[in-house]
């Protein structure tokens, strides 16, 4: 009964602060499009400290120039990995 949340807009939109309080244990967060800019910032620290899995679409990150400061290599997923991740969760909630 887990949910995959995706954020696809820049951190300037403040979507993480809307999304983060609504995560339940077992939920995961996937960053895509301009959402990958979150991986340049410290805003993810809280979520990571709470043990939530945070993933990032590698194509979108590479396109923008990888900063890769907060996410381990293993958390970078290509499109195929993203599809697998979707299948591992019961539903998707998109934040945009």
């Amino acid at each position, binding site marked *: *009964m887990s949910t995959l949340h995706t954020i696809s807009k820049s951190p300037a939109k403040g979507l993480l602060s*809307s999304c983060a309080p*609504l995560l339940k244990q077992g939920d995961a967060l996937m960053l895509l499009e301009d959402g990958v800019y979150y991986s340049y910032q410290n805003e993810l620290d809280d979520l990571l400290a709470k043990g939530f899995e945070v993933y990032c679409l590698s194509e979108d990150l590479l396109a923008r120039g990888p900063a890769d400061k907060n996410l381990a290599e293993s958390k970078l997923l290509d499109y195929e990995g993203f599809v697998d991740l979707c299948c591992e969760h019961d539903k998707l909630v998109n934040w945009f």
Partner: protein
Amino acid sequence: MSDSITFISRAAPYGENNSKLCMDIALAAAVFEQKINYVFLDDGVYQLLSNQSPEAIASKPVGAALEAFDLYGIENVYVDKNSLSSRNLTQQELVIKAKVADSDLIAELIQNSKSVINL
């Protein structure tokens, strides 16, 4: 997991179309007798303010449409507590009776829904 659909409406009225889109999808789903939770989050709470007069900007009042929720059998209407307080709003200023919900409750609604529409 229940078979309900949770709608999260996060946009202020009038400035963009998302608030109306979200509502239209919910009303359409209600016609097909889906179980619906409707949550007002972030700027979405501005839709609930009473005394809106959007005629001045050639728009229809959102509040009137919200009153249709009852007719369509959408009873589980929630408003996020933090979104209200961070905007200096109180439940008394709202046009319909929405249950004030904290993040934990909304997280549970999401967890227990079959799908979530987040606009």
